[in-house]
């Protein structure tokens, strides 16, 4: 790759959202802005051969905006009759290239859009993925994804979803909506629902990029700090989750020396900050649990009672059957498999967990530890039926075969 091409690729990864957000301000139309920004990146491939500009984002924004103004002049009458509602920037803004990324974030993650549309728009507009890539990320045909994106953009214009940062009174719940989108991206990438590999590194990296961007733009928000910490601490184990032979390795078997120490250090500092906020938020508590694991020198030395205590707080803050399940597993590790099994028992009646393979897998594990092989066999078989990820299936099949 030439130096220019490498610089363009780098700027695409780092600056796409900033350039697009600043261009939308001029076009007041998402499609035209995307077109002009794509064109600016294409031009950079040639223009930067003589040298990469000192401020690539400014160069790209100027180029995209110039093209946008030309287009608007040429087709003044053809343009959409429904321009986006761009509120003027606060007076006295020093930079000619305003950082409008937050506006773009809140438009993409508006609760009036379907969750799947929010996620798709975020990948397309904030991460700069092509429609084909977004379609691949969610395992749908490209035409389906194109239609989903078009429909969402039409709703933004027709229902007048504003291009602005919400006022302080609305900010907390709007930030939650944004974090939910980033969290979905992360969990989808952390453990792929189906397919041959356990993890989808592309999605994890996008989620991490977005969380870092939000941290930069909303530095005082404890929930943002909590989510960034959760992603860093969970993903710090990425190199050790699968063995050299492709086998799933449990936390118990992972080589902790190969966990990403710099991610853990950064994550732990963020958890401390997020927990200072009272009451601590859902992501901060989940990150605190991940931090207990990250800081335990070994599986045997894990402070399970601390983990159970954190799950108790999480359960108050964010009641959900999945939290109950994880708490029951921690109880079993703190107090033995018989107690764990008893804690799992009432969850069998939760309709939300009826098709959740991890419940059957957790029950199977406690039954196996208790030497109740026949019941364990049935539970492993149930878990296998409910799991579509190949790596996880192989793990369950091996455990099943290993029963006495």
């Amino acid at each position: 790759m030439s130096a220019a091409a490498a610089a363009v690729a780098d700027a695409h990864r780092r600056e796409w959202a900033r350039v697009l957000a600043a261009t939308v301000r001029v076009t007041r139309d998402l499609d035209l802005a995307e077109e002009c920004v794509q064109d600016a990146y294409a031009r950079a491939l040639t223009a930067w051969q003589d040298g990469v500009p000192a401020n690539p984002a400014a160069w790209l924004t100027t180029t995209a905006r110039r093209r946008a103004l030309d287009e608007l002049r040429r087709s003044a009458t053809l343009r959409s009759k429904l321009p986006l509602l761009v509120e003027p920037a606060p007076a006295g803004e020093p930079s000619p290239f305003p950082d409008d990324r937050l506006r773009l974030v809140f438009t993409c993650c508006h609760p009036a859009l379907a969750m799947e549309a929010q996620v798709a728009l975020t990948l397309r507009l904030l991460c700069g993925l092509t429609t084909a890539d977004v379609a691949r990320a969610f395992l749908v045909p490209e035409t389906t994804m194109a239609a989903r994106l078009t429909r969402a953009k039409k709703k933004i214009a027709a229902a007048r979803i504003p291009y602005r940062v919400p006022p302080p009174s609305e900010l907390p719940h709007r930030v939650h909506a944004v974090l939910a989108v980033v969290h979905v991206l992360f969990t989808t990438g952390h453990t792929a629902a189906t397919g041959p590999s356990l993890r989808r590194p592309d999605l994890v990296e996008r989620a991490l990029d977005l969380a870092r961007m939000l941290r930069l733009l909303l530095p005082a928000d404890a929930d943002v700090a909590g989510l960034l910490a959760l992603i860093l601490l969970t993903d710090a184990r990425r190199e050790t989750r699968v063995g050299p032979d492709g086998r799933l390795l449990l936390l118990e078997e992972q080589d902790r020396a190969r966990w990403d120490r710099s991610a853990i250090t950064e994550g732990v500092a963020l958890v401390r900050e997020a927990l200072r906020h009272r009451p601590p938020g859902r992501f901060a508590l989940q990150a605190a649990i991940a931090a207990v694991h990250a800081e335990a020198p070994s599986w045997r030395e894990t402070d399970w009672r601390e983990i159970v205590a954190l799950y108790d707080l999480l359960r108050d803050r964010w009641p959900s059957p999945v939290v109950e399940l994880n708490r029951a597993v921690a109880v079993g590790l703190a107090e033995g498999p018989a107690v764990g099994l008893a804690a799992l028992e009432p969850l069998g009646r939760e309709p939300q967990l009826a098709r959740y393979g991890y419940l059957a897998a957790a029950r199977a594990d406690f039954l196996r530890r208790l030497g109740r092989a026949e019941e364990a066999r049935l539970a492993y078989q149930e878990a296998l039926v409910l799991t579509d990820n190949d790596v996880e299936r192989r793990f369950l099949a091996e455990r099943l075969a290993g029963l006495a």
Partner: protein
Amino acid sequence: MAQYLVLLYEDEAGWQAGGPAAEAGLKAHKEFAQKHGDVLRGGNALQPTSTATTIRDGVVTDGPFAETKEALGGFYLIEADDLDQALAVAKDVPAPFGGVEVRPIMTFD
């Protein structure tokens, strides 16, 4: 400025049963109209779906367009700068026996 129609979809039985819940609902609508009088451009309650007549392809039939548990029972027409503002008003619309749907009004020029 744009206009939005807030459609009230509710279980008719709730209103027809009367009693304290329906009385409180009526009072809430009066309070809503007072609080948001500056953005209200219109609104009405509808007679129940048992009074509805549907015409499809010229054929007249008794009954509402679609049989649903929660039927269209009334509407408000409001004026707002954007969807966020419209939703803020719509959240105040009393709908004790169901919920509301917010739809932007199409403009032709």
